Every structure is written in C-alpha cells, then in structure tokens.
C-alpha cells in the first residue's frame, strides 16, 4: 500500500514516516505541510492511504475530506481525542490515531487497513464471478438474460449473431468478437471465423468439424491446434 502524509508539523511527519518504515507494509510516497497542496497532488496521483492531521491552520483535515470527490482511505492523526465522533461520520475514515502515536497502535491501524483492502478485493472477486454467470442480450427491444454455461455455440450471421442455447436460439444484433470478449475463455473457444463454441458441449470431433448437440460446426485449420491443446486428450 502507498500513502501520503499531511501534517503542518514537521516532527509529526517524521514520526509517521518512521512508523511506516518500521511496518514495511506501507510506503510513503509524499509528505505535505498543507492540505491544499495535497489536493492538487491527489488529483493526478493514485494513493491508497492518507495520514491526515485534523488541526491545521486555515484548511483543516475535515475541510480536506469534504473537498475530495472520491477520497482514498484516511487515517486521522491528531492530538485531540474530541474529534473521534465527528471523524467517523466520514465513510473514508478508517482509523483515528491520537498523538503521540505509539508503535503497537500504529501496527493495529495498518492491520485494519490491510483487512479492509483484502475484504474489498474479495468482494470484487465474488461480484465478477456472479456477473460472469450470465449475459444480457437485446432481442426485440428486450434485454434477455442468458445463462452462460447453457450456451452451446455462437454463430456469426452477417450483422447478427445466433446464440444457440439448451432452451432457445437467440438472434442478436452484434458481432462474434464482442460476445467472445464477454464469454469466459476457460469455457469458450473460437473454432472458425464464424463460430465460437462451448468446449464442454462437444460430443465428437471428426477431421475438420466438431459436433455439438446435433449441429456440425466447421473447424478452421488455423484454430484446430488451439482447440486440440484445450481438449483433455488421452
């Protein structure tokens, strides 16, 4: 994780930098004496964490948070315990450290930030898996949900594609390239310039064709090698 430090007090900046160096899980990219300079920096740089002092002249830590459209995770650092309630009103505030910050408390904060990051990644993974189970296609001005593993194959037909599933055959205004990008490469493969097939639905392969359900699909010479590599050959 990378971070920046915003504090008008040079000793505070030095201490936070030292705590980060000790932890080895966080890298200090930049330090700022003024929150305004930090805003300019954040507009053009991607930062995971901001260690932010609340009490700064003319532009406070809270002013800083309110100015940012999508603030990164923020750990507030302050000599006052009184701001804790106000601090956690902001969604981006992950922790609140009272100065002088002791090592153990700082490590706890880093642990909190790491778990926060891990849960975010896990959430994203689950979401993408859920999303990849279905595809929505436009048919007669309606969006139809198709279960991806139910697709046998997709065939290009001019400006349209034909999606053959266990339940139905859908004609959709799209290209084979576009749908190929949406389908999981672990399950689908291009076997011909006009066909993408579901590998798990192959019944048999003979010379330059493959049988899926009762349909015979051509295999082009250039795609045959890749298909053979993907099959669980004895």
């Amino acid at each position, binding site marked *: 994780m990378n971070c920046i430090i915003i504090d*008008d*007090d*040079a*000793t*505070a900046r*030095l*201490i936070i930098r*030292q*705590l980060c160096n*000790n932890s080895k899980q966080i890298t200090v990219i930049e330090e700022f004496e003024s929150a305004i300079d930090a805003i300019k920096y954040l507009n053009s740089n991607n930062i995971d964490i901001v260690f932010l002092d609340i*009490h700064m*002249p003319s532009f406070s830590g809270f002013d800083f948070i309110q100015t940012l459209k999508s603030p990164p995770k923020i750990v507030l650092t302050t*000599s006052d315990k009184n701001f804790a309630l106000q601090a956690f009103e902001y969604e981006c505030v992950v922790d609140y450290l009272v*100065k*002088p910050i*002791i*090592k153990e408390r700082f490590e706890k904060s880093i642990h909190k930030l790491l778990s926060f990051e891990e849960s975010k990644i896990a959430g994203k993974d689950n979401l993408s898996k859920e999303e990849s189970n279905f595809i929505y296609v436009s048919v007669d001005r309606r969006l139809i949900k198709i279960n991806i593993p139910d697709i046998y194959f997709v065939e290009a037909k001019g400006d349209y594609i034909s999606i053959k599933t266990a339940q139905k055959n859908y004609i959709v205004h799209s290209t084979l390239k576009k749908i190929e990008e949406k389908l999981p490469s672990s399950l689908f493969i291009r076997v011909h310039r006009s066909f993408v097939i579901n590998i798990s639905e192959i019944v048999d392969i003979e010379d330059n064709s493959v049988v899926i359900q009762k349909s015979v699909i051509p295999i082009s010479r250039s795609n045959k090698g890749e298909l053979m590599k993907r099959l669980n050959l004895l």
Partner: protein
Amino acid sequence: METPNLNYIKELSGGDLAFEESILSVLKKEFPEECLLFKKNIHAKNYEESANNVHKIKHKISILGMSKSLKIASAFENELRKGETKLNSDFLKILDKIHVYLGC
C-alpha cells in the same frame, strides 16, 4: 516537575540513529520558533492564535514523554479558546524546562 526524556523517540527509532538525529534537529529548530510565536500572540491577547500555538507545542511535549505537562498544555489550550489565561505561568515553566533540555 517531570523531566523531558527521549524514551518515546528511542522506542520509535529501534536503533535508527539517523531518525533520532533528524527528529532532535527538527525539535531544536521548531520549538524556539513556536515558543516565540506563542509569547507574541499571548502578549497581544490574541488568544485563539495562542491556543493554536499551544496545540502545536503540545505535540512536542508529548514526544518528550512529559505526560503531566501534556495535560496542563491541553487544559491551557481549552482555557485560551475561552479567552482565559490562568494556566499561563504553569505552561511557561514547561517551556523553560524543554528549552534547557534541548539546549536551544
């Protein structure tokens, strides 16, 4: 009155002498400047600004391990924000103690 110490700085440094040197050098540079600014503001009865000065100095008091003095400084900061100065002499004694310790 308690004596300033380097326990916190040493614990943080874990033997990193470069860190110890740089933090002491910043303390020696900033502390006299901040004290001067505080004295100027309190003399001019600019209590809000004096409170801001105390706030900044208070962090240095805490770094030097003076927990009782830190409480006095916090109470004085709150006092100043209300326009009161009862703890001024106690605070000045703390500043003197740190001045002597840092040799600045």
